[in-house]
Every structure is written in structure tokens, then in C-alpha cells.
């Protein structure tokens, strides 16, 4: 089994690297593709060094990490809910994380507290959606989606309220939470490390997730400790979403589009799908952000616009087909 797992992952790694090279080589200032490698190896002019190493590379890596985190979070929630429509943005996790982060910022706090508060917001959002949608019966897709959409709209309103009452000098910094934008992202490393850790963690968890995807009763009958596993997924999905949101605001639909496409091609073995989501989600966001940077340069588009333009039709198609 390990051989068929490795090949698609290798292809995705190559695609990811290609996308990063493209992204680092593209911008409003042209750096010839041949030069990019030279610059990374420490040559080239001072300006090229600055452009490639200090502006493009951190941004590209941030976009990759954000996309990977969101896609893995989406894939995990889809397993948990046994529903391909689940997505951190659609279900309001991103909204909850954004509210948490904004509250911390409004209170004048910074750094880790913002991330922690975003995590708390995402967790609260998850619990609300799951608690409410579960109710007494089981999850039906329409019930879950309705709950998620309503909760997400609620977060949207809270964000608008906070923007309306926040002091003027905080506004520009806060606005980007609504749009989803990696241009403010600073250091990509914590997110990349988290992404790597999660990918390593899902290898031992993967088969249990496969079994869980067939329903909690079936999973329990096959020896899965369902409750602890479900909690692990809740918390992981919230942590991933919160990290992505603290980095880049709420970017929609990556968690929906990427796992869906991959499942069409690669089947539904979580041990393959989850690392593949990390790679493909990262690749997608790197490409989308490259587009966002250059399409109407020097004006910069928030990358959330691009992902939404891709994601909304996919979502509607899935919804249409699932009837």
C-alpha cells in the first residue's frame, strides 16, 4: 500500500515547488527566472535580494502554509461530518477565529494572545455548529449547512460591529480579516511547522479516520475510540483554522475545493488525502496569491477574492449534485 501513497504525494510536492518558483519569480518588478535561483543562492543585486528573499519568499511560504492548513482543516471536518460540503469558512470557524483575534486586538493585546484568542473563537464556533446541528438526531447535510451558514452570518455581523466601534487607527489592520489577505503575513515558520506536525500525526490516525468516515457506530464496532478521536479532530481543525486566520484573515473555500478535487482523483484514504491536501492547498493558495499580486498591479487584490471566485461555483456544484 505504501507505494501507491508515495507517487501522488511526490507529484504534488513537485507541483508545489513549481508553484513556489513561479510565485517567487513573479511580481510587479520582473526578476528573470534564471536569476531567482541565483538570488536564493546569495547572488544578484541588493534590490533583487530584498525582493526575492524578504518580500516574495516569506509571502509565498505564508500563502503555502495558510492554504495547506485550511485544506487539511476542511478535509478533517468533512471526515468528522461525513459530508463533503464541510469547510471552515462555510461553517463559521473562520468567522469565530476572526472575532477572537479582533477582540484581542481591540483590547490592545498582541502576539500569542491574538493567536490564542483566535483559537478559542474557532473552537467555540465549532462547538456551536456541532452542538446545534446535532441536536437530538443525526446530522443531515441541510441542517448542518443551515446552522453553519447562520452562525457564520452571526460572526460576520459581530465583525462588522467591532469594525464600526473600533478606533480609526485600528481599522486598516482589522479590515483585512474580512477579506483574507496574505500580504500582511509576517513569519511563515510557526504555521509551516504546525502543518508538518499535523501531517505526521495523521499518518497514525489515518486508518481510524477512514473507519470514522463510515459512521461513528461502525467505527466503534471496528475498535475506534470514537469520542476521543472526534475531539481530536475538533481541536485540530480549530487549531489549524485559527493559525490560518491569524496569519491571513478568513480565506474562503480552500478547505472545500481542495479536498473535493483530490478525492475525485485519489480516492478517500485519509492517510493519502490529508498530506495531499496540505500540499495541494498550499499550491492553490500560492497560485491564487500570485494572481492577486499581479492581476491589477500596482493595486493588490486580497487573495480571498480569488479563492471565493473559485470556490463558490464548486460549492454550488457539489450542493446541486448532492441532492
Amino acid at each position, binding site marked *: 500500500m505504501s507505494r501507491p501513497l508515495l507517487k501522488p504525494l511526490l507529484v504534488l510536492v513537485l507541483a508545489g515547488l513549481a508553484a513556489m518558483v513561479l510565485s517567487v519569480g513573479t511580481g510587479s518588478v520582473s526578476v528573470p527566472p534564471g536569476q531567482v535561483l541565483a538570488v536564493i543562492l546569495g547572488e544578484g543585486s541588493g534590490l533583487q535580494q530584498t525582493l526575492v528573499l524578504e518580500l516574495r519568499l516569506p509571502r509565498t511560504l505564508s500563502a503555502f502554509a495558510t492554504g495547506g492548513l485550511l485544506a487539511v482543516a476542511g478535509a478533517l471536518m468533512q471526515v468528522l461530518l461525513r459530508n463533503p460540503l464541510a469547510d471552515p469558512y462555510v461553517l463559521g470557524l473562520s468567522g469565530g477565529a476572526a472575532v477572537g483575534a479582533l477582540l484581542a486586538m481591540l483590547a490592545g493585546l498582541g502576539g500569542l494572545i491574538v493567536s490564542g484568542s483566535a483559537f478559542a473563537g474557532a473552537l467555540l464556533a465549532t462547538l456551536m455548529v456541532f452542538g446545534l446541528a446535532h441536536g437530538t438526531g443525526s446530522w443531515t447535510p441541510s441542517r448542518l449547512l443551515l446552522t453553519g451558514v447562520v452562525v457564520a452570518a452571526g460572526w460576520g455581523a459581530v465583525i462588522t460591529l467591532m469594525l464600526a466601534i473600533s478606533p480609526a487607527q485600528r481599522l486598516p489592520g482589522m479590515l483585512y480579516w474580512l477579506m483574507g489577505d496574505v500580504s500582511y503575513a509576517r513569519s511563515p515558520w510557526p504555521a509551516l511547522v504546525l502543518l508538518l506536525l499535523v501531517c505526521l500525526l495523521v499518518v497514525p490516525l489515518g486508518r481510524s479516520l477512514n473507519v470514522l468516515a*463510515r*459512521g461513528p*457506530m*461502525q467505527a466503534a*464496532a*471496528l*475498535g475506534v*475510540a470514537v469520542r476521543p478521536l472526534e475531539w481530536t479532530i475538533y481541536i485540530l481543525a480549530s487549531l489549524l483554522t485559527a493559525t490560518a486566520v491569524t496569519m491571513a484573515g478568513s480565506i474562503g473555500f480552500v478547505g472545500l475545493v481542495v479536498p473535493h478535487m483530490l478525492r475525485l482523483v485519489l*480516492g478517500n484514504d485519509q492517510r493519502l488525502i490529508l498530506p495531499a491536501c496540505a500540499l495541494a492547498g498550499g499550491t492553490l493558495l500560492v497560485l491564487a496569491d500570485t494572481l492577486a499580486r499581479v492581476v491589477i498591479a500596482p493595486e493588490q487584490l486580497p487573495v480571498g477574492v480569488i479563492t471565493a471566485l473559485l470556490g463558490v461555483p464548486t460549492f454550488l456544484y457539489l450542493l446541486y449534485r448532492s441532492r
Partner: protein
Amino acid sequence: MNPLRAKELVIDIPGRDDGQPLSFTVEPGQIWGVLGPNGAGKTTLLHTLAGLRPPRQGTVCLADYSLTELRRRQISQQLGLVFQERQDGFPATVLETALIGRHPWLSPWQMESGEDERIARQALETLDVGQLSDRLVSTLSGGERQRVAIATVLTQAPDTWLLDEPTNHLDLHHQVSVLELLTEQARSGRSVFMCLHDLNLAARWCNHLLLLYPNGDACWGPAERMLAPAALERLYDQELLTVEVDGAPLFVPKKAR
């Protein structure tokens, strides 16, 4: 093997009185049939015996351990359950579905080996669905799905089989071959405990029966003792005619005039 044992067990059906607490042991080699009308709690009993629902009272034990003391993984190495209802959230092939039966036997870091795949393929062959192994489960007929589900538990290879209406959706031939398979399992030292709605299949293949009444009453024992027409008529609230065929009783419902 460790026999499955119910001790003073009262299953939890909301709004129903406790009724008769159940105490029985499913010994190796036995084939138990649970009979009862719709809503009597057959499925709930099966899920309670598998440890998937908490009982209202009493305990379910494997050997000397209550199920609540055991890890799910340990339980699943000894108990297999064929569900009546199945949900398929994501598309999966027949072979992948059968392979998850190996889950209890693999450590978290282990990938399914060629040996695991061989076991799964053999189980599929036994259930006469080997030729479908690359098909998506969602494209199969009801009877084919039922056989894939049984093949999954055969792959799991538990000592005790719990089955919820295993003959559902199956044609006559496959009903018989599934029951023969279970008889074969029992003969090799395992045990079988299944809900059946077909009285005559139960009469023919089970050596122990448990009659479950809608009010919570129950009685159980060796099949020949339990197949008293009067008790069965009360069970189903239906008058029956009894004939003897091939040395076993055969029950036919009386026509209402």
C-alpha cells in the same frame, strides 16, 4: 474464545419499563436467534451487547471483564457486528470496505499488508462478491451491499458474531449460503448471535432462541424448547399454522378471513 455474557441486562429503550432482565451466555458453537416484532428492541439489544449503547442496568461481559472495562480495540478483536443500516458518506470500493475489517488487528503505524488484502479478498470470494472488488459500494444492489458488509466482518474474524437481520435484501440462495457460513463459523468454535425476522430461518438454523416482547418481557433457551406455537403467536400477535418438514417445524401465518 471468551464467551459473551449478559448479566441482569436491561436494555435502555426510552419510555419502556424494565421488563425481564436478560442473563445468558453465548457459548462457542452456539447460534442464537433473536425473534420479536418490530420495535421490540432487537437492534438496541444487539448494539448494547456490542457495547455501543449503555444498558439501563446490568452488564455485558467478555470472559470476566465488563465491556466498559475493555478498550474498543480489544472488544473489536472479539466481537464483530453486521449493522442493519449503513451510511456511505464518501465513495469507497468494495475491497477498501472489506479491508477496514482488518482495522482492529493493525497498529496505528501499520499499513495494510498483502496478507491483509488476501484475507479481505478471500472473504469477498466466500460471500460471492469477489468479482465486484473494484466497484464503488454506492453502485451495488442492496443484496450485494449486505454481502459486502458480512464479508467485512468475516475479514475482521471475530470470535463472536453479532448480526442485525443478516438475510435482509438477500435472495433465497444467498440467504442460505450466509446462514451456512455462520453455521460453519459456529462449528469451528465461534459463536453467532443474530436478529432475524424470518421465523422459519431461525427455526432451521439457530440452536438457541431469545424471544423479545414489545413490553420488555423476554424468554430464551435452546431452540427446540422455545419454538412453542403459543409463545410465538403471542410474540407476533399472529395466529400460526405449524407443519413439520424435514424433521423441523415450519410456521405459516393463518389467513385472516
